[in-house]
């Protein structure tokens, strides 16, 4: 944590022209980084500088910059979303770095998340997992009154704990095996806590797990690294829940 208002940093940024390019690190140095800046604002400044020299800016994904859309995906100094726990890269501020630090920035790396350019990757595999079963089948207009089925506050809160996943993929990026279990488990666990969607519970877990396999993610070894980097702190109990749901689906 820096006490200074202005620091300078050296950046080692992964540059890759396209999916088939081998890629390489490039070094940049930035003087005069205000420590109240967010990490992405620091990259904005880098890109402004590059463009002022008519050079190619670094491509990175971002949108809300509030830690909720799940767009940003940077591996900062070896950790997805950077050194601050429970903080998406866009919510990381430069005050967590020191004057003269060298900061490495890499993209998510996984077969299922191919690099598009520089730090931008393709995460559509997550959409396909969701399409396989991450929903309650209810057609518009068919719903009973919202209070018709009471749900205990404990269950509702617990469902919410799992529902807050922002779909960023940091769990995959951090996992030594590139497993998507935390993401998939979070959805399965959320819906397992609610009476809605109970009729298709078994089908759901089976289909989502199958799709997860197909996408080329790795197995889960219970390293819990995913939970450690998850910006919203999804617990690996979601993975355990996915497994019990799966067993229930298997024996019925």
């Amino acid at each position, binding site marked *: 944590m820096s006490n200074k208002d202005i620091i300078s940093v050296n950046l080692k940024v992964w540059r890759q022209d396209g999916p088939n390019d081998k890629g390489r690190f490039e070094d940049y140095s930035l003087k005069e980084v205000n420590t109240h800046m967010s990490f992405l604002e620091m990259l904005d*400044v880098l890109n402004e500088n590059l463009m002022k020299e008519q050079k190619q800016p670094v491509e990175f994904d971002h949108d809300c910059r509030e830690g909720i859309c799940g767009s940003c995906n940077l591996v900062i100094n070896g950790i997805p979303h950077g050194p601050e726990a429970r903080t998406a890269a866009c*919510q990381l501020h430069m005050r967590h770095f020191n004057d003269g630090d060298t900061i490495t920035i890499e993209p998510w790396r996984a077969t299922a998340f191919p690099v598009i350019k520089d730090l931008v990757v393709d995460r559509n595999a997550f959409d396909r997992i969701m399409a396989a079963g991450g929903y309650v089948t209810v057609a518009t207009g068919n719903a009973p009154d919202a209070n018709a089925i009471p749900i*205990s506050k404990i269950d509702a809160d617990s469902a919410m704990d799992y529902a807050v996943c922002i779909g960023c993929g940091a769990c995959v990026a951090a996992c030594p095996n590139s497993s998507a279990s935390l993401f998939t488990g979070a959805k399965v666990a959320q819906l397992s806590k609610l009476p809605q969607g109970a009729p298709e519970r078994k089908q759901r877990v089976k289909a989502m797990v199958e799709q997860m396999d197909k996408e080329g993610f790795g197995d889960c070894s219970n390293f819990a690294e995913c939970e450690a980097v998850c910006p919203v702190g999804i617990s690996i109990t979601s993975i355990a829940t996915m497994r019990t749901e799966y067993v229930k689906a298997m024996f019925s």
Partner: protein
Amino acid sequence: MEVADKTTFKWDSKIPTGPLTEKWKTHKNNVKLVNPSNKRKYNILVVGTGLAGASAAASLGELGYNVKAFCIQDSARRAHSIAAQGGINAAKNYQNDGDSIWRLFYDTIKGGDYRAREANVYRLAEVSNNIIDQCVAQGVPFAREYGGTLDNRSFGGAQVSRTFYARGQTGQQLLLGAYSALMKMVHSGKVEVRTREEMLDLVTVDGTAKGIISRNLVTGKIERHAADAVLLCTGGYGNVFYLSTNAKNSNVTAAWRCYRKGALFANPSFTQIHPTCIPVSGEYQSKLTLMSESLRNDGRVWVPKAQGDKRHPNEIPEEERDYYLERIYPSFGNLVPRDVASRNAKNVCDEGRGVGESGLAVYLDFADAIKRDGEKAIRDRYGNLFEMYQKITDENPYEVPMRIYPAVHYTMGGLWVDYNLMTTVPGLFALGEANFSDHGANRLGASALMQGLADGYFVIPYTIGNYLTEVTPGEVDTTHKAFDEAEQSITAEIEKVLNIKGSKTILDFHRQLGKIMWDKVGMSRDEQGLKEAIEEISALRKEFWSDVFVPGQPATYNKYLEYALRVADFLELGELMARDALDRPESCGGHFREESKTPEGEAKRDDENYTHVSAWEFTGVDKAPVHHREPLIFENVKLTQRSYK
């Protein structure tokens, strides 16, 4: 491009006749239906996958139409709706505090300062309850009471508790609900979602919408999509101010291209400035972060009584603090509507009583609430917001009052639509924040989510059929010359912007535009400023087209190229906003004209002359647009000067 004849232009807002409370029911009974086996012959493009787009695409897919949905993010789930925090309104009256459809309607119309259509707003209030039912059925984990029933909170501009919420992530949960419904339809094959694909033009044939031109943002390839109807659900354009609470990629491009193709743009200057945002901290600032309005349920807003009081807030004694909202508006207190709260914050800062380094901030203090309910209760209610505040500012709001300042948040203006949500281009519909329909001159908190979902789940599935029955499906395909022309012009535009290779960055222009907009078309506006703004924006636009530097190649992933095209459109929109503001010399809702205020400094409407919607017709980039006025007729509510005292 067909532009309707200016002199003979006829309004038809298609509002059904009959009593207000019966209009929607009657209309639903009267709309023409598409035979189920015919539905699959119709192709519909849904541009945008926010609450409006995702709910529309899912519902239309369920009905059996072929739907293609587009979004610029890498997943439909990342649409900007995800960021909404506070909640969604509905007239369920679960709290038994006297709420009703009528009250929700009335609050919304009044909150909008009587610049919205009665019929639309009433319909919105009517379907609000179905939305909650639908979302719960999808598995949206709304907050609940111990007994298992749904919990509510109160929001600004209302005296009942009707806001449903899921912690501080209501938008996220609602969008994930709609997204899951969408993915379900993707699974069934009825909907195709094209992510990272940006609509760059509307294709019209004989003035009717028949498709779009888009750019695949990964490969840079220009694509053509033909359809029988196009639904624009592309969100708001607050980013014209550069700094706003909108996501960085939110933009006006799709709507703007439709405007250029003949869709009227309504009330473009009606912008909501949200009172509770984290203040700007420096030049590098790239966006502003909203602190949910729900915080005003428990937080008390104050500034020091004395000017330039630089003491630490906790050292300023009670009697030297001015809880100005409670003082000026005793009955609504801290829960006055957003426009009122924002303007008052600006006023106290203009008086030199603002706090923080820049003097552009006021305090939002939770000390009393923590004393009353305990820190745990406050943490349960706002934990994640407090955490976010601390991450950004490095200050602990449990101990030090938050510093907040107004920021651009929402745009009430948008494409003009009739009661069926169709724009003036037949076959082109606009839903959600992209249209102008329901919020008048000011939107009440928690009603944008309601509107987006109302449009997508409960309105468009009925009204689109009415249009489609008159269309032969698949009439036009992508080989039509209208597609050739549209594609060529987009390709040429991209070439052009890439070849300028000027000396200023896109950001330079966007910042400069933002500053003009904030200073002159922002929280308070006057004739002189607006006229200057028109001049300055027009000059800035010319400079952009001669001196901007856009890096890279057209046929690759190139985020700065996307950005350049969006800023180019903002540079046209900004001017239109200033014109619109200039042509409305009254104050109403979020639109405050210095020339029109009460002796106490409150906004003063001029109902005699301005009870209308302003809708603008494009005539050419550097030409003055034509101003049309749709009169607003109020048969059910009496227009009163809003008072929250």
